[in-house]
């Protein structure tokens, strides 16, 4: 066996695991990218579009991590390292949400005009600073 030969030659071999079907993973990724573009162009309501696009992006990211990065074949302990940034960044987003969703922002110091024509005449909820 190749890995045994490698071990005898003086270096520990990479852990033996069955090779995934990389072409099938590639096809899945290509199809998911195509669906993303369709969702983008379909003119769906914003909330549906954003939810679908985020779900599709995560599906692609999980496929890459599990099969191209071989996380599915690694020891479960390694998942702790892989999931740590996901948990921490999710926690960061949750901490920011109450502030972000509670008011409409232009620029809170009101020195810069609203430049997006779609929102001309809109008033920010945040109170202007004291003179």
């Amino acid at each position: 066996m190749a890995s045994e030969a490698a071990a005898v030659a003086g270096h520990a071999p990479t852990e033996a695991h069955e090779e995934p079907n990389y072409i099938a993973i590639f096809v899945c990724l290509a199809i998911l990218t195509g669906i993303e573009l369709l969702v983008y162009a379909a003119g769906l309501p914003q909330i549906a579009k954003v939810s679908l696009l985020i779900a599709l992006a995560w599906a692609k990211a999980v496929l890459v991590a599990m099969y191209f990065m071989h996380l599915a074949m690694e020891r479960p302990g390694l998942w702790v390292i892989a999931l740590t940034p996901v948990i921490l960044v999710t926690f960061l987003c949750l901490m920011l949400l109450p502030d972000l969703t509670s008011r409409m922002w232009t620029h809170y110091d009101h020195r810069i005009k609203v430049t997006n024509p779609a929102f001309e005449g809109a008033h920010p909820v945040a109170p202007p600073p004291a003179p």
Partner: protein
Amino acid sequence: MSEAAVIQSHEHGVPPVDQHEPSLTPDTSGKLGMWTFLAADAMTFGVGIAAYGALRINNINWPEPAQFLGITTTAIMTFILICSSVTMVEALSGIQHGNQTKFRTFMFCTIIGGLLFLGMQAFEWHHLLGEKGMSIKRDLFDATFFILTGFHGCHVFGGVVYNSVLWIRGLMGKLPQRKAHLVEIAGLYWHFVDLVWILIFTFVYLI
């Protein structure tokens, strides 16, 4: 682990695992090192994307990305990066099975994929900075766009250099089958770069 010890462990049916290697990645500590680095790097990208979202949400001055950004070009860039991930795993498969020709061919394709991506990004930036009048100093949309895609582009450049070093070592005959773990570790980095781009493509370009 000494050669004699490895042979002895084989004779007794014990897997040849070096007792000094970490238990999470018993084949090589380098892989554990790369995973730890990638976790730290993922937090940097994660905070960048979270900051992008925080600045964008409920901001009525935020433009529609498609006003400035070319979705078709970027979709092609995404496809190129996914293809280069496939060629990377094929290169790894080649060296793991002792097929140096397969390793060299697919690693070369991976490098070309990275260079194509960088070339298209350079073209996109040139277009945005010139014709579209975007600038990192103009507004938050521009600043976050250039920081996120620029930081990712630096990672792609680093990956191209990393892969090129391995490819050249392969050409010089200095990357035998028993060093396949070096390609696996480089592959982890390259796939991570692909994974991050998948998220950037969605959050910055499509949403």
